[in-house]
């Protein structure tokens, strides 16, 4: 869908493969005052829609100090209906204002054709129709923003048995649309446990050049299902899978996400440093 020349023009300009943290309200003031050493910050796009001057002043101050990523949760790339033009316009305004190093969204859907919105990251069937739908919406978004975006694999608690595996679906979406892949290692682990597949097979299937970023987070074990709560430290099996990703795909900018039961900033930064140490090791090996 995107020719080679267009893809080059749009392409994400990567930052060095360091660890960063997700920007949450609880840490806004501490970050602005302390300016701790960290690789980059990720803000949820929708949290900065509108013109709340206090929030934008804080974000602008942090943007002047750190590389910034804008990560959306509500665009609903996989909806069979049209993308919300108001949402797209607000995203475009935000991207122009902050010029983030990367703009990312989720590989999922949230809104029905009649516009009722779940405000959740709902699973897609891994079908040809879903690929066409998602790629058309990625094209529309990339055209509007004038840049490549990345899509993130989501955690799922149910599956629609379909035409291909999740990893084949993700790789094909990236191939056809020319988007980057934001690979959430925790989500791969959660889905592997929930649906019974080998997560290393998933990693092996990823097109290396398309993977532009990693996410790490904590899950909650509810017995029959792992839930991607972003409410705990990264679990050991996820760290192990992260190391495997570094070996198979290579170091990439890596984000620690922590959205519920948010800890004090030093705890989050310690978790980030944990990821940074793995990245350092693999950067050294790569060099």
């Amino acid at each position, binding site marked *: 869908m995107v020719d080679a020349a267009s893809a080059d023009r749009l392409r994400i300009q990567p930052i060095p493969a360091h660890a960063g943290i997700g920007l949450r309200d609880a840490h806004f003031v501490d970050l602005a005052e302390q300016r701790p050493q960290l690789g980059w910050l990720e803000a949820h796009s929708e949290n900065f829609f509108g013109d709340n001057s206090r929030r934008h002043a804080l974000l602008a101050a942090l943007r002047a100090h750190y590389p910034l990523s804008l990560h959306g949760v509500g665009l609903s790339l996989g909806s069979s209906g049209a993308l919300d033009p108001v949402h797209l316009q607000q995203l475009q305004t935000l991207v122009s204002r902050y010029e983030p190093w990367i703009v990312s969204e989720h590989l999922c859907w949230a809104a029905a054709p009649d516009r009722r*919105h779940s405000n959740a990251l709902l699973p897609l069937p891994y079908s040809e129709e879903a690929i066409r739908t998602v790629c058309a919406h990625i094209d529309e978004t990339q055209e509007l923003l004038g840049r490549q975006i990345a899509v993130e694999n989501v955690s799922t608690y149910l599956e629609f048995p379909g035409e291909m595996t999740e990893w084949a679906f993700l790789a094909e979406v990236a191939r056809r649309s020319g988007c980057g892949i934001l690979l959430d290692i925790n989500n791969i682990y959660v889905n592997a446990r929930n649906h019974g597949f080998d997560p290393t097979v998933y990693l092996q299937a990823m097109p290396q050049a398309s993977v532009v970023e990693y996410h790490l987070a904590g899950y909650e074990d509810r017995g029959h299902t792992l839930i991607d709560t972003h409410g705990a430290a990264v679990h050991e099996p996820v760290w192990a899978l992260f190391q495997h990703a570094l070996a198979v795909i290579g170091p990439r900018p890596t984000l620690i996400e922590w959205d519920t039961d948010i800890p004090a900033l030093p705890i989050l930064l310690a978790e980030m440093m944990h990821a940074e140490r793995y990245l350092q090791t693999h950067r050294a090996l790569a060099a």
Partner: protein
Amino acid sequence: MTTPVRDLALLQRLLIDTLYGATPDPRLLASIGVRGGIDAEALLSIYRNGTRGTLYQALELSYPAVRHYTDADQFRRWARAYVGTLPSVSGDLDRYGADFHDFITHFAPDRPDLSELARLEWLISRLMQAPAIPALDFQTLAGYSAEEQAALCLRLAPRAALFESMQPALEMWQAFQEGVGSKHDNRFEIHDRHTLLIYNSNDLSPFELSMGEFLWLANFAKTSTLLEATERTLSTYPDFSLDTALIQALTLGTLIPAHHLS
């Protein structure tokens, strides 16, 4: 045997129906892979609970003062009924809950103060998200001839709003902001208030208006010329003072030239 759904639009409609409370359609259930002895309905409930929880939380965040003056169980009942009746239609959760005050009116007709407080909180949240657009000032106005001034098309600034209420919603909101209001507080007086709200420099400032001043500014909720607004106001309130109202509007930055919105 029910056939699984292959059409993406139908699958999405059936799933959203379920998330908003409908009994899962057999075609949707047949489309879901069953694993480890967990049935499809149990898996759907994970998403249903997630959506409900997200929307309840969005209402709590949009209406902290209403939540403060209400029992937690009561607020949750209202939120549950609201979510079940009015689905979200945006990926931006800040846009969810615009009609919550109508719901409170329906569910708690004996608490008009809470309904009005909800209306006020939504209004304030919109002001906080509104763009800052340069307001009409003395210098700009002075640059026009008298005829041009009369024909000037003006609008209320995006960070200005009018709030009229018989209920003590503003006092309740202010007490909540100051951390002094309680849910059993009955010291708030009921009387007709006409208030101009201005959001500026991260602060909300309320200004009490006379009926004439309120009506005059209300003309600018839609684009109006100074002349039209003043003539309409004078026809109802002959003692309305344009000078006083205009000086106040220019001082507070209440009005913007209409073309600034285009």
